[in-house]
């Protein structure tokens, strides 16, 4: 409960301006809190007369937290390879493990595993727990969840990280619930607080309009999922040494109440936009499927892949695998060309870490120009054809020489 000391309160209104939920207001000269207070504590921090407090009954730790140590990364294996996000997690995991003076381990689930454990060590793992079972050939929340939760209970890692992929977002919340611990999804930053060693997990909320830093103070492991292309992997080092632990579990744990009958790979794109160095993205400004054709042309002449805002996908001009943004993919290419994209925050969170962003839009106030390295305010139905023509000229010019 948020407690307001009416005598101490001077009705200055700082709390009202600070509240991100509009839940506290000054009425009759003092602060009054409404039903939608989320107890985030922002107002408590800013009150200059200490009139606000959040009553928290001292919470007990869930067991002896000191028993939990080590950083774990769930290594996602599907279609014969480890998902790149797993290596990125080993990158951040390595940093966290070193800060905690603890080992970094990967947990690898699947069937027909071969060199993958060695790969994980080359990317920074000190140890890899391998669970190689036919029952794990297909992803099921039951089997994957049971295995990871069982291993975590036995070995007690302090921190457990997984990719915020379709698989991760599906089963990791189940694992967190089984372990009765806290989970923070889609983290964009992970840090260790120096005074108590607690993991600080930063993530976007409200579609990316707000960033929140979150902690899991009383239970272990501290769990977090991280989106692909947010963290950097360590340098691959095939000389690196590590331990491989082959795990055999009770077969009952591998049973699943959901059966996978078939896996269908998307025919839509051979090119995965998250792996392209150059992306040309189109939005509402292209006005039609025909207009969107300019984006495809530019991508082709630049040797890049085609991406899209949600508006373009919703309009049916291109398929969902090309969607960039909060509800689509996160990309980090060398060059991102945003054509007719206004730059709503939900789109920006999916591409703002591109090395270079080029924006073409007729509205000089479009938010996209706030993140663009190079911006062109203009009519893209003039700019794009001109750009395409010049690039073709250059290309044939070079070929001619």
């Amino acid at each position, binding site marked *: 409960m948020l407690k307001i000391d009416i005598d101490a309160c001077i009705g200055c209104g700082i709390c009202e301006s600070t509240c991100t939920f509009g839940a506290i207001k000054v009425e009759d000269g003092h602060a009054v809190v409404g039903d939608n207070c*989320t107890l985030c504590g922002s107002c408590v921090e800013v009150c200059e007369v200490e009139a606000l407090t959040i009553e928290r009954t001292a919470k007990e730790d869930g067991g002896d937290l000191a028993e939990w140590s080590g950083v774990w990364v769930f290594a996602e294996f599907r279609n014969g390879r480890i998902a790149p996000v797993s290596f990125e997690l080993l990158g951040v995991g390595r940093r966290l493990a070193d800060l905690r003076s603890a080992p970094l381990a990967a947990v690898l689930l699947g069937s027909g595993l071969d060199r993958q454990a060695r790969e994980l060590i080359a990317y920074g793992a000190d140890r890899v727990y391998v669970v190689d079972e036919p029952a794990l050939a297909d992803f099921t929340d039951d089997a994957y969840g049971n295995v990871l939760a069982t291993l975590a209970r036995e070995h007690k890692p302090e921190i457990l990280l997984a990719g915020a992929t379709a698989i991760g*977002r599906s089963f990791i*919340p189940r694992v967190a619930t089984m372990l009765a611990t806290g989970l923070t999804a889609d983290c964009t930053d992970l840090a260790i607080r120096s005074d108590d060693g607690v993991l600080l997990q930063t993530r976007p909320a409200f579609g990316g309009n707000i960033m929140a830093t979150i902690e899991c103070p009383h239970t272990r492991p501290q769990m977090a999922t991280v989106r692909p292309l947010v963290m950097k992997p360590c340098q691959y080092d095939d000389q690196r040494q590590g331990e491989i632990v082959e795990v055999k579990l009770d077969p009952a744990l591998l049973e699943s109440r959901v059966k*996978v009958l078939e896996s269908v790979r*998307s025919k839509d794109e051979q090119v995965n936009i998250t792996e392209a160095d150059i992306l040309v993205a189109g939005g509402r400004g292209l006005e039609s499927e025909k207009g969107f054709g300019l984006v495809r042309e530019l991508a082709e002449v630049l040797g890049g892949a085609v991406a899209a805002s949600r508006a373009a996908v919703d309009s049916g001009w291109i398929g969902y695998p090309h969607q960039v943004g909060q509800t689509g993919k996160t990309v980090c290419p060398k060059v991102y060309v945003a054509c007719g994209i206004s730059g709503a925050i*939900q789109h920006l969170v999916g591409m703002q870490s591109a090395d270079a962003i080029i924006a073409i839009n007729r509205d000089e106030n479009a938010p996209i120009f706030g993140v663009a390295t190079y*911006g*062109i305010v203009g009519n893209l139905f003039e700019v794009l054809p001109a750009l395409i023509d010049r690039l073709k000229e250059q290309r044939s010019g070079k070929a001619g020489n």
Partner: protein
Amino acid sequence: MKIVVCVKQVPDAKDVRLDPKTNTMAREGVQSIMNPYDRHALEAAVQLKEQFGGTVVALSMGPPQAEETLREAVACGADEAVLVSDRAFAGADTWATTYTLGRAIDKLGGVDLIICGKQAIDGDTAQVGPGLAQRLDLPYVAYAKKILGCAEGKIRLERLMDDGYDVVEMKLPGLLTVVKEINEPRVPSLKGKMKAKSMKARVLTAADLEADPASLGLQGSTTQVVRVFSPEFRAERCMLTGTVSEQVEQLLEKLESLL
């Protein structure tokens, strides 16, 4: 079939802005809406009811004003509305939320299927669906994009994966979370709107749920917000000016150096 649909009233996230100078949410014109993914969850439930018979119960955990969202749910085909509301629930993270919703569903009893939206557009965690299934010890499928059929106590569906989709079969009772591709939510019918107008949601308080107070709200949460701030974006930018051909020439130069 008794189907429970979890719905949440959320601020329309696309309109939410944080003023970096004052750290305030600019709330002018920010509406409260039914979480968009929950509209799809509700539509999926109503379609199943129309096909197989049964009842659809719209369930929401929220402050008293969340009853508006339940009213909308009834207007779009839900038969019953249940509001789980109590000051004790304030500050709940997904762990405390799944506990509370789990107690409510236990209380309702006889549920065959629970359908949730993939995620709420304020929290964006996508954790409540799977967490709730685990609380109730139920199987679940997340990211359902198409329901293929339902027979002999099993539901067959397509689940979205990063590289395509899987065809899966789940035994009932169970839980689904749905993505937008699954359907086009209907608009409220006139009959629905009239029914919604006179509807009063059944309210369940912490006491009604026989809930353990230590498991509720902020107190019952395993995660805590340390701070909230505005995202920062890069400052460097260069606008290319002039005629179209001048702009294009400048851009070509820049591209040369980038590629």
